[in-house]
């Protein structure tokens, strides 16, 4: 389904979607972030990259698996929490972030299905916005198989035209959203279509950053496990979790018990994000750590994204959103690292 929505009418559409929990980018003092939208008229879609991708909504940083307590007669009771999630629409999602969701889909749909993830995922509708101008100076989606107008993962993709949005739906869920406010949409004219295509092709030209010949990197990485490159590139790494926590594709997590009471026992088993840059991520309780230093952890990050993930899921685990570059406090630039891998030994 393809429609035109005037910019003015956008809030009206949102009003019609009152049955859904709506998230949209919100402007803060120095950044943008996804938040539950309480006033439809306050929506703005001129956002730069939000600090966190919609990962934070579909795969929240903290999730209670179950509550437990010790009951009379020395028995254990475990109970899933009451469902809190409802049908959710995330507005203004950038194509790189939607691609991130598709990558996470692959992981959580492996041999074992992660039901907690899928419960949320299945209730989530992604309404995207094509990037007419790169939302970050470090965008490089074109190099990793994406584009500023990629439709991957979207139920709906909107492209900003002069006074309107060109709205394309790719799923039943998307169609439903449009039909809920059918009267405010119009049918695109031929020049609308042309404008959209021009916006799309122009947007690609505006991207500043690229990695040439990225496809040569995965095979090359297979032989670079013991390369001194990792030590060199990780010298300034401080081993914080910014790059991974902000990454729309990183999915690693931890499971911990949080006790409310020791006697009688009660508490929760909780999933939280975890990340491969923290030393405790892989440390055995014997103290042995297979990844003992920052070099091995940086290597894991690159290897996972551009080697192992490629092996397992035939895709880069990177969508070119540029967050890890922009937010790295010590200026580690994944593009630079990949270029060094690519050119290594040349």
């Amino acid at each position, binding site marked *: 389904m393809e429609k035109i929505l005037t910019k003015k009418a956008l809030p009206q559409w949102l009003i019609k979607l009152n049955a859904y929990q709506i998230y949209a980018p919100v402007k803060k003092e120095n950044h943008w972030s996804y938040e539950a939208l309480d006033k439809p008229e306050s929506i703005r879609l001129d956002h730069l990259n939000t*600090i966190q991708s919609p990962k934070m909504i579909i795969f929240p*940083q903290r999730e209670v698996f179950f509550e437990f307590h010790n009951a009379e007669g020395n028995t254990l009771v475990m109970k899933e929490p009451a469902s809190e999630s409802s049908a959710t629409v995330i507005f203004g999602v950038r194509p790189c972030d939607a691609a991130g969701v598709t990558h996470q889909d692959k992981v959580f749909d492996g041999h074992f299905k992660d039901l907690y993830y899928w419960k949320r995922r299945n209730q989530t509708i992604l309404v995207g916005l094509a990037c007419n101008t790169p939302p970050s100076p470090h965008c490089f989606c074109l190099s990793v198989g994406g584009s500023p107008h990629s439709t991957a993962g979207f139920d709906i993709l909107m492209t900003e035209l002069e006074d309107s949005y060109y709205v394309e739906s790719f799923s039943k869920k998307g169609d439903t959203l449009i039909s809920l406010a059918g009267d405010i949409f119009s049918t695109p004219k031929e020049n609308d279509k042309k404008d959209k295509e021009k916006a799309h092709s122009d947007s690609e030209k505006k991207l*500043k950053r690229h990695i040439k010949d990225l496809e040569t990197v995965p095979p090359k990485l297979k032989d670079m496990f013991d390369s001194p490159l990792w030590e060199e590139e990780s010298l*300034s790494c401080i081993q914080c979790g910014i790059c991974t926590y902000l990454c729309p594709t990183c999915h690693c997590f931890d499971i911990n018990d949080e006790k409310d009471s020791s006697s009688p026992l009660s508490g929760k088993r909780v999933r939280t994000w*975890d990340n491969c840059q923290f030393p*405790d991520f892989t440390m055995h309780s014997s*103290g042995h750590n297979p990844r003992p230093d920052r070099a091995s952890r940086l290597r894991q990050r690159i290897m996972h994204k551009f080697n192992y993930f490629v092996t397992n899921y035939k895709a880069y685990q990177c969508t070119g959103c540029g967050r890890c570059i922009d937010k790295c*406090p*010590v*200026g580690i630039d994944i593009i630079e690292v990949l270029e060094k891998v690519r050119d290594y030994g040349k």
Partner: protein
Amino acid sequence: MVALEDLKQEAKNVLEGGTVKYIIGYKKPAVGFMAVPAFFHKPEDLDALVWDPTCVHNLVLFLKDEKKKKLGQKEPDERPVGIVVKGCDSRAVNVLLQENYIDRENVYILGVSCGKTGMVDLKKVRKYFKGKIISQIDFNENESFTVTTTEGKVEVPAADIFAVRCTECITASPVIHDVLLGGDSVRTPENPFGSLEEMESKSQGQKWDFWQEQLTKCIRCYACRSICPMCYCDECVVDTINFAVYPDTPAEEKAQKIKWVEKSPTTSENFIYHMVRAIHLAGRCVDCAECERACPMDIPLRFLNKKLEKESKKLFDYDVGYDTEIPSLISSFRDEDPEDFIR
């Protein structure tokens, strides 16, 4: 003002002569204009060394890595590490010396003075130059910076784009150094704790609302901890397991690792984490504000540390990072320490 060539020459001298094993300094990034930390092992690499108002990082942080690396080596290279150090950073060196974490002979300090200005705040720069592509920012002799964009050079008053902490700085020149470039620069800010006033004047409820919003954002990436030169503990209260595990570590010790803070980034846990961090930095924080700069979630972490710096000064007349021979703030007291809060 520091002449970059002088700095390069000094660095080259000690690196070439083998006085230092390597030099920690700054270089330009591949893309963008904010300098990044760089490690110079060969004299010829030093051509890339830069010094400008974007050299925000407190490189003293990397002395932690150096120490830990050395501990792991059987026959470590005992030569010092050369390090480019600003006024604020130099006080961090002093705190590490005061706490015996490093020895004076471990470091060769290339002190650089910030002169009349200081470091830029990237957020302010981005706001000021909305969308423009910046290639370079330079110091001027007066209280301004020269910013080079694709549209040419402009002179910007320092006040518009430089970090708040620099407006409150009283040590624009390193207080400890082996060489000092750019001369001694004395700065007497009107109110070294001025930035706190707005927050302090808020009502209790407003303060809570502010901090609740701010700290609820925290994703516990621990960048604030990781980038802090003072956070050198092997094990942190927020860690879920013991790090200092050795073959002789009994299982009981590991089993009894206290969970002061849960890993869940909920409001309460985030508060406890940041409160503990602030308290642990009392009398140690030198206001390099790297925690706040590193924070991806835009949490004004510096306030917490600055508040305790202010109280340390006000209540206990304690200055951080000047005297390496005195006991630390919390390992000392004066008979006349205030106690009007005690019943």
